[in-house]
């Protein structure tokens, strides 16, 4: 008997785990509490209503029940099904509100990071002036407060594993806070429609252990691909679009030293390049990487006053286009890429160019 109970309980556990992201903060656990309460409350009502409906269909089909009963109502019943739901609803409201209060009021000593959303990448500015794109590095077990604003249109910063989300509004500051308990990578989405590459505007929260955090502050490079993948989808290393490698395939490279090109592949994701540049030849906001290397392209040469000139896409061109994108813009594309000068180091530029080369 208890065995059966345990078995059922295990199944429910499994069902829960499969249909909700990992709770990587205490807040997330509280959130799950009210969420499952609502789920089971709804189940009770749903089963009740639909059950009654089916029961009536069986019992009062005209074949079974020729003579309907002439009833107009029943005040008692009507009062009951008005009052009871009302009470339940306000229980839900009160509980929900108490959770919401922790959501908005983080501890005063939170470490603050500034988040800037722009079409279509996330930029993170730390107190010490460091800037990263696409990866938000935070220490585990320490309250972090994100103060967010947008450079162009509405965006929204959403971390499912932390159950936090807020719009990022131009001309206004919004904020979320969290205290990550699970080191590793946590997926971030933009959830406010922001144009062409909305679905490409992804990012990662990289939660570091205390000593990793020290290293990172000291400027040491952290190889994010060595860190555990998003615990909600352990089977996947896909933190970016186009990186749909199940663990099996990924392990090969994730394990040993990455080739320069592979580093580049990781970089164009983590730096947000793939929001605008595809690797499969499809035309997004910017030219696709596929087969562009070594090609002759017509470009607007702004250093020469916006004349159209033909250049060979080589290492130098690519380097310039990464550091000063608007210098030479391939014809037919908007000059909308932000300058990455100072945001990527020599090694990273090399890796990215290597990757673009590899896409024949």
């Amino acid at each position, binding site marked *: 008997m208890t065995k059966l109970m345990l078995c059922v309980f295990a199944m429910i556990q499994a069902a829960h785990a499969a249909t*909700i*992201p990992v709770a990587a903060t205490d807040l997330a656990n509280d*959130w799950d509490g*009210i*969420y499952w309460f*609502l789920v089971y409350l709804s189940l009770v*009502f*749903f089963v009740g209503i*639909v059950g009654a*409906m089916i029961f*009536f*269909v069986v019992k*009062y*089909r*005209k074949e079974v*029940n*020729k*003579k*309907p*009963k*002439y*009833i*107009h*109502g029943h005040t008692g019943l*009507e009062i009951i099904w008005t009052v009871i*739901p*009302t009470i339940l*609803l306000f229980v*839900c*409201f009160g*509980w*929900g*509100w108490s*959770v*919401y209060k922790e959501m908005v009021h983080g501890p005063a000593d939170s470490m603050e990071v500034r988040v800037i959303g722009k079409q279509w990448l996330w930029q993170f500015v730390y107190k010490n002036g460091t800037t990263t794109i696409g990866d938000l590095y935070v220490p585990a077990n320490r309250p972090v407060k994100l103060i967010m604003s947008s450079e162009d*249109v*509405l965006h929204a910063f959403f971390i*499912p594993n932390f*159950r*936090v*989300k*807020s*719009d990022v*509004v*131009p*001309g206004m500051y919004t904020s979320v806070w969290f205290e990550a308990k699970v080191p590793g990578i946590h*997926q971030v989405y933009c*959830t*406010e429609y*922001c*144009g*062409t590459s909305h*679905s*490409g505007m992804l990012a990662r929260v990289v939660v570091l252990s205390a000593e990793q955090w020290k290293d990172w502050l000291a400027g040491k490079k952290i190889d994010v691909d060595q860190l555990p993948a998003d615990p*909600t989808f352990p089977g*996947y290393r896909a933190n970016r*679009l186009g990186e*749909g490698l199940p663990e099996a395939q990924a392990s090969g490279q994730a394990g040993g030293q990455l080739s320069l090109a592979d580093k580049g592949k990781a970089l164009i994701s983590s730096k947000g390049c793939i929001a605008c540049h595809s690797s499969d030849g499809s*035309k*997004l906001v910017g030219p696709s990487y596929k087969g562009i290397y070594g090609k002759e392209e017509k470009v607007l040469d702004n250093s020469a006053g916006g004349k159209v000139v033909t250049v060979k896409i080589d290492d130098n061109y690519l380097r310039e286009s990464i550091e000063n994108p608007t210098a030479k813009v391939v014809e037919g594309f908007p000059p909308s890429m932000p300058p990455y000068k100072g945001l990527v180091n020599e090694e990273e530029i090399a890796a990215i160019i290597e990757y673009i080369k590899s896409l024949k």
Partner: protein
Amino acid sequence: MANSSTAHGDNYLNHSHGLKSWLLTLDHKRIGLMYLFVIMAMFLMGGIFALLVRWELFAPGMQFFSSPNTYNQAFTYHGAIMVFMVVIPLIPAAIGNFVLPMQLGAKDVAFPRWNLVSYYVYLFGLLIAASTLFINKVDTGWTFYAPYSIRTGTSTTLVLLGAFIMGFSSILTGLNFIVTIHKLRAPGLTWDRLPLFLWAIYATSIVQVLATPVLAITLLLLILERTIGIGIFDPKLGGDPVLFQHFFWFYSHPAVYIMVLPAMGVISDVIPTFSRKPIFGYKAIAAATFGIALVAFVVWGHHMFVSGQSEFANFVFSFLTMLVAVPTGVKVFSWLATMYKGSLRMDTPMLYAFGFLFVFTIGGLTGVFLAVVSVDVHLTATYFVVAHFHYVMVGGTLLAFLAGLHYWFPKFCGKMYGEGTSKVGAWLIMIGFNVTFFPQFILGVLGMPRRYADYLPQFEQLNRISTIGSWFLGVGFVIVGWNLAKALKSGEKAGPNPWGALTLEWQTPSPPPHENFLKEPVVTEGPYEYRGEKALMGSNA
């Protein structure tokens, strides 16, 4: 005043002939059918966009569309068409126009000319908005959120203009219906004898009249924002983009009730008719209808819990939103109680009514999730929301519309459709619908955001199921359409009152004569007094 003589040649269809006699008609019945025709055409269009969107999401990466831009345009048109051109006018303008004066025992609506004007205004706005399909497609999403809608280089202005114009049609219809219900009720048709469908249309009209003007000014301001940059919504000029959301949702939340109240009205008429019982708690349902209509105006902020709206506002709006669920619950329970100890006829309209109850219950309950502010923070703008409002809009409004369409079809054209085929269609639609949208709840909780042209591979399985479901849904609609078309051509004759219903529209020949009634009807009792002989009438009884 039971079924009056059916031996009467002249009816509104053969009363006058020629295209002109339709295009310039002042007959509310013909105007209703003209609405129905256009709306169905738009529904087909929006449906095709929906199928394409689902196809694109069949797998990660780009499948059907060449670039995310085209996908964004597709879901924008799907949303805009379905909301502004289909679901809002669906029941009030199409079925309402036909049924309302007849249920009132009136010869026509109060202002027949304005009724026709309203139709052409709708058509005009619709054409302007649709024209952008051929000029420069729009990619703002149907919500036109500033500042993206200000910046994007597409012909958004035209679509805004179109929606602006269609708003006037909505206002005129509502105004017309309100006055008609106030002034043109048949002798003896007191307020407590008004069919619940009319109560619903009445509440809807009031919402239309009060909310739509605010949409008009909002869109107008946005148009000016785009053309001359007035800066009220544009942060670059010192405006506030969140203010736009307040303006927009002050209309667009009540709009949700413009869509769903008439649906509830249809259900409230269908269930007693096919249970052969008086509706359970007539006054409660009528009151609930108005309760919902009023609360509709004070809950819009629940669309903005993460928009940067203040904590205090979130508190107020979350609190008030809870109130919506109470009257909604009252209605659902009353419908159930109406079936209790009834003698249920399983005709197609009733089948849809069951489908409505099943689906709408899920839609309503998931609504509570989104009303609880903290739960909403995680779920909003994910597929959970998409699933929720499709369960309410498609599952609720559309199924109720199909119930109404099959219920009044014999009245429209005096012919009866093939019962078997229509049931097959109904089942396909209901199964397809749930297969399409239930997985999206889970997708949403797992964190898949809406309006994504491409998604991470871990979401693939559920998206596959959803896409496959959408095909069943599509086939279902095709079957239903084909079945009704066939009935129009060669359906067998339906009597004046095939369902044995008691409301006035059934007490006159089908199709009805030019001025609805052969002699002015007089009402002596409520619309659902099924007792004695009347309780035993009805289809194949």
